């Protein structure tokens, strides 16, 4: 390939740098602000003149944010395990459509569900009539299985050579055994991708908690974040007596940082697997 014109190269570099700055600077601003001490002046609105960890101390000192983090972590872990397990079982069962009468109908039921949604209110009424309102189960059960994830997993399972599975069956393994000892070990990459998909969506989930939880002490961190940072209502003074002493903006940003941290921690894995998974899906088609 001929060398591109230096002017073109320069222009590209400017655009790339601009993009990176636009993406990174806002996040950096948030992190820097969270370390500002109460009496600090923010130079250019960004760089604190004096630094402190007091925002983090007050937020993690056992108040509502600490509790919300616990709720979010628990819901994410339990939800991810449950969702991945149920999705994998469903996906494997539905690879048997040719052998088990009726399963083709179940497959269609799942696929067709991607085309419509009954809507917010009918869904709310079902959750309510199941007695799940104000329970943590309401944060998991209504979004337990994603049809999209099931389809991705199923098409991965279908790629496993039939001879491998038949060999296990001839050795007397039943389908549960085949699934557990043959299919799952061969499917680690897709299991990782799907588990990450579920994990991120449980961590980020906001709306279900908003409509199904009435008790603020049960709130996950996204809801606390909304109430405290976006709607500007103070965290309960009784729960966090230090808050008055800290620059409120620093405290707000500390909550943002804490709520983002888990995503940042798993991001390297996420990026590798997700893009691979997306490519996988794309190439498959």
């Amino acid at each position, binding site marked *: 390939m*001929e060398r591109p014109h230096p002017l073109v190269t320069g222009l*590209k570099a400017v655009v*790339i740098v601009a993009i990176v700055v*636009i*993406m990174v*600077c*806002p*996040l950096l601003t948030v992190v820097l*602000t969270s370390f500002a001490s109460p009496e600090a002046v*923010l130079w250019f609105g960004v760089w604190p003149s004096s630094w402190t960890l007091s925002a983090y101390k007050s937020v993690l000192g056992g108040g509502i944010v600490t509790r919300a983090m616990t709720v979010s972590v628990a819901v994410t872990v339990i939800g991810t395990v449950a969702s991945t397990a*149920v999705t994998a079982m*469903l996906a*494997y*069962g*539905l690879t*048997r459509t*040719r*052998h*088990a*009468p*009726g399963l083709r109908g179940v*497959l269609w*039921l799942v*696929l067709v*569900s*991607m*085309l*419509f949604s*009954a*809507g*917010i*209110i*009918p869904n709310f009424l*079902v959750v309510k009539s199941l007695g799940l309102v104000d329970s943590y189960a309401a944060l998991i*059960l209504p979004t337990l*299985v994603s049809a999209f994830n*099931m*389809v*991705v997993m199923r*098409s991965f399972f279908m790629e496993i050579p*039939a001879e491998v599975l038949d060999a296990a069956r001839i050795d007397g393994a039943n389908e549960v055994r085949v699934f557990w000892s043959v299919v799952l070990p061969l499917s680690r990459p897709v299991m990782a991708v799907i588990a990450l998909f579920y994990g991120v969506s449980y*961590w980020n*989930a*906001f*709306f279900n908690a908003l409509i199904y939880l009435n008790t603020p002490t049960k709130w996950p961190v*996204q809801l606390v*974040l*909304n109430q405290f*940072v*976006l709607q500007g209502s103070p965290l309960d003074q009784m729960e966090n007596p230090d808050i008055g002493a800290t620059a409120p*903006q620093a405290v707000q940003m500390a909550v943002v940082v804490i709520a983002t941290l888990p995503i940042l921690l798993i*991001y390297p894995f*996420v*990026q590798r697997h997700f*893009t691979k998974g*997306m490519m996988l*899906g*794309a190439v*498959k*088609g």
Partner: protein
Amino acid sequence: MTQLTTSGGSGTTSSPASAEEVTAAPRSATPSLGTRIWRERYAYLMVVPGLVYFLLFHYLPLAGIVIAFQDYSPFLGFAGSRWVGFDNFLAFASDVDFAATIANTLVISGLQLLLAFPLPIALAVLLNSLLSERVKRLVQSVVYLPHFLSWVIVISVWQQVLGGAGAVSQALQAAGMDPLTVMSDPSTFKFLVTAQVIWKDTGWGTIIFFAAISGISSELYESAACDGASAWRQIWHVTLPALVPVISLLAILRLGDVLTVGFEQLLLQQPSVGAEAAQVLDTFTYFRGVRGNDWGIGAAAGLLKGIVGTALVLGANRIARRFELGGIL
């Protein structure tokens, strides 16, 4: 990518199974239905939890649609509430918020199709033209990141940078100027929403185009270069034509989704700009139905959206099929 999975789904079902059929079909004595079911009992067992989930949380709610035709009261339930025919739909159509709700939904959707949709294509082509693999990887990991942040976090970050008390405003005030008002200005709100979508999802949107670009044979570029085509002309005559099928498919699917605009994103920002600028069909359903206890009207608005939306998705798929671009079912 949507097309892929499902067409992959239906495509793959037939292929491995056909091999199975060849061995099974010639046998004259087919086992009885009962035997076949018993033999696959574990497959049925594994399907049960997932099936129950879909029935409970996707199909059972369909029954709740009836309240769109009722003067629903939670105390009386479905059975006790009065039937009112299409009154809820008429009430929705003559509601003071009706015109703004429909207009906001369509304008925001249109802006996103016009401004946010083309950017991933441009970014993918740009990144693909970079010679250094390391720079490309680095930029990719930066631009994908916001896709994984929740809307609450994204809006908090924007608030901190562009809000009235945010970084830019503080800097402006230090220089003796007025603080910014973009985060709470109803007149520019639709552009703000579009800009947020661009910031959050442009990077992620490039992935599907990367997949398409990586499928282009390098011979095409080599022969174009031999014919003296510049880098620009190679993009114009080789890369973009190869992307046309993906672009058309995504555009059609997006059109099928025209009534769905970032629900959480709008819900979260409605308090700061007001309903006049930020009410869309989904938020109307939420505020009227769930919050305002106007169950009937909320359900009617939701049902209207559901029917038109499903029809559009099906129509979009049909068009995609007609042009042989694939489809989701």
